[in-house]
């Protein structure tokens, strides 16, 4: 499989007045064509910032990619002009956001909003555009597609709006679909439907997907491979089976332990003690050291590199040669 997206050694800084924070540190991962890559991690670990960077949607004045590269389909996203980015967004890469209630414009009809990417990227006649819109609305399981295009977002339920968002993303048949917590804001039953839909669409097309979530259950259900992020870095990367069977990083182990299915009989859910350090609180050592039950002296003074065991990578000193990891960077 070829790599559709390569994120290499990505570093992102935010400037707010005089204070500078660095929420993304040396992030590496790849998305292969046709696969669903899951990105999982607690709130604030940098999942959304990473995905916005891939879209070239970081706020231009207050943020900066200080180091690293984002190579999509052999093009460097981080070097593109706004004009070049506009040609790619909604066309080759699309994004679905977390909040279906606020992500559609309240003063334009669904049809008007779905026209935009087609007008922008495809040379179709008005009739062809409408046909395409109805086709995609049907593909995402919207009943009464012909009527819906003349309705306004507030007339639709949250689940329907998220389907509209998905159809918006699919209109131009992108190569990569980024879904940033696409179901977090929805009811459980609707969540399952939407995930099922996304899975079906990926299977039917040649598209790849980056699925961002903090729910390992969703990862298990949907993804081929997983990237686990912690405090702005990738701490583990593996295939789904491998990650669930043989987690290597203590943080991943903690996440798996907190899944309800594994401690059903306990009265309270397990949760990892302590707090994620904020970007400006990170010191010399391992970012997870303050919460890690295996932390040693070395963890506090030196940040671990990435070790790999076959296709499985983790950023933890426990994988030092003694355990059989190979220093991979």
């Amino acid at each position: 499989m070829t790599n559709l997206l390569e994120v290499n050694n990505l570093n992102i800084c935010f400037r707010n007045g005089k204070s500078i924070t660095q929420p993304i540190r040396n992030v590496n991962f790849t998305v292969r064509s046709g696969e669903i890559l899951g990105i999982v991690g607690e709130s604030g670990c940098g999942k959304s910032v990473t995905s916005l960077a891939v879209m070239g949607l970081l706020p231009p004045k207050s943020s900066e990619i200080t180091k690293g590269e984002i190579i999509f389909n052999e093009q460097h996203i981080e070097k593109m002009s706004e004009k070049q980015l506009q040609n790619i967004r909604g066309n080759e890469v699309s994004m679905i956001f977390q909040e279906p209630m606020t992500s559609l414009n309240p003063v334009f009809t669904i049809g008007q909003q779905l026209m935009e990417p087609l007008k922008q990227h495809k040379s179709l006649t008005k009739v062809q555009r409408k046909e395409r819109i109805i086709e995609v609305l049907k593909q995402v399981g919207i009943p009464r597609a012909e009527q819906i295009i003349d309705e306004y977002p507030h007339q639709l339920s949250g689940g329907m709006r998220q389907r509209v968002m998905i159809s918006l993303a699919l209109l131009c048949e992108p190569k990569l679909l980024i879904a940033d917590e696409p179901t977090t804001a929805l009811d459980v039953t609707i969540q399952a439907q939407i995930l099922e839909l996304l899975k079906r669409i990926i299977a039917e097309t040649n598209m790849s997907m980056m699925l961002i979530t903090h729910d390992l259950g969703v990862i298990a259900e949907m993804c081929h491979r997983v990237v686990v992020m912690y405090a702005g870095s990738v701490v583990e990367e593996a295939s789904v089976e491998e990650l669930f069977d043989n987690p290597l990083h203590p943080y991943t182990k903690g996440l798996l332990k907190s899944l309800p299915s594994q401690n059903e009989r306990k009265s309270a859910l397990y949760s990892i003690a302590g707090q994620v350090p904020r970007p400006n609180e990170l010191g010399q050592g391992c970012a997870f050291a303050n919460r890690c039950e295996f932390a040693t002296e070395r963890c506090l003074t030196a940040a671990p590199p990435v070790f790999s065991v076959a296709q499985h990578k983790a950023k933890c000193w426990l994988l030092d040669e003694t355990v059989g990891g190979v220093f991979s960077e």
Partner: protein
Amino acid sequence: MLDFVVKRSLQVIIVVFLALTAVFFLIRLSGDPTALFLPPDTSREQIEEYREILGFNRPLYVQYGEFVGNAIQGDFGQSLRSGESALGLVLARLPATFQLAFSALFISLLISIPLGVLAAYKRNSIFDRIAVAATVVGQAIPSFWLGLLLIYTFAVSFSLLPSSGGGSIVHLILPSVTLATYSIARFTRFTRSTMLDVLRKDYIRTAKASGAPTGSLVLKYALKNSLIPIITLVALDLGTLLGGAVVVEMVFAWPGVGRLLLQSLLNRDFPIVLAGVFIIAFIYSIVNFIADILYAYVNPQIRVK
């Protein structure tokens, strides 16, 4: 919709009625009109005679009752001075006031919306900073002072434009610019802040993620969303604009309702004052009524309900 119209019509009636009642009692508190327009050496008996003819000697509530009874039939009485119909006199001045207020509105919209959009788009640039500073000044200048300044500059020093009177476009320039200055500043600031707010919304990010170019993001998407609050503000300010016309009409001797109202107030020509207040309150309410309908038109969320 019908429900809405009926409800709002009732509101209009109540507002107008309350305004008239308040003004009726307020001007009566300020004293008896007869003494003012009779010569100083008029004898007490003659004054009493006049009060009787005009009905001012009766108890206030009786006069009020009679006033309301007539007003409902559209009769506001005659001018105490000229004997002409009070309402007729006011209506005759209305076109001039409208002309002034709407020219000012037109000028302010023409300038403030593009200026506010541009300032928001170029946020924190030199242009934005200058625009914001200018709006602060524009909102702070008292209109009579600005009026005098403009008269001094353009009429006295350079003799480019007439300083007073009405009747032609040239006469309209200085008063409408004077009246517009405050609104330009206010609308510009408001457009800028509304646009900034809208540009941060999730749906703008969605449009951006669909590849919409910056131009259409700002001019098509964000502007349409901003128009809802802008129209509301403009409509609410129309009343203020009509009111502001009163002051400007005095400075430039513009022959509108405001000038007539002020003159009549000084002369204690009560029927004209009440007819004027009636017209202004009525127009003010109707304007807000129309604003609500417009608001519903641009905001589909309200339209459906």
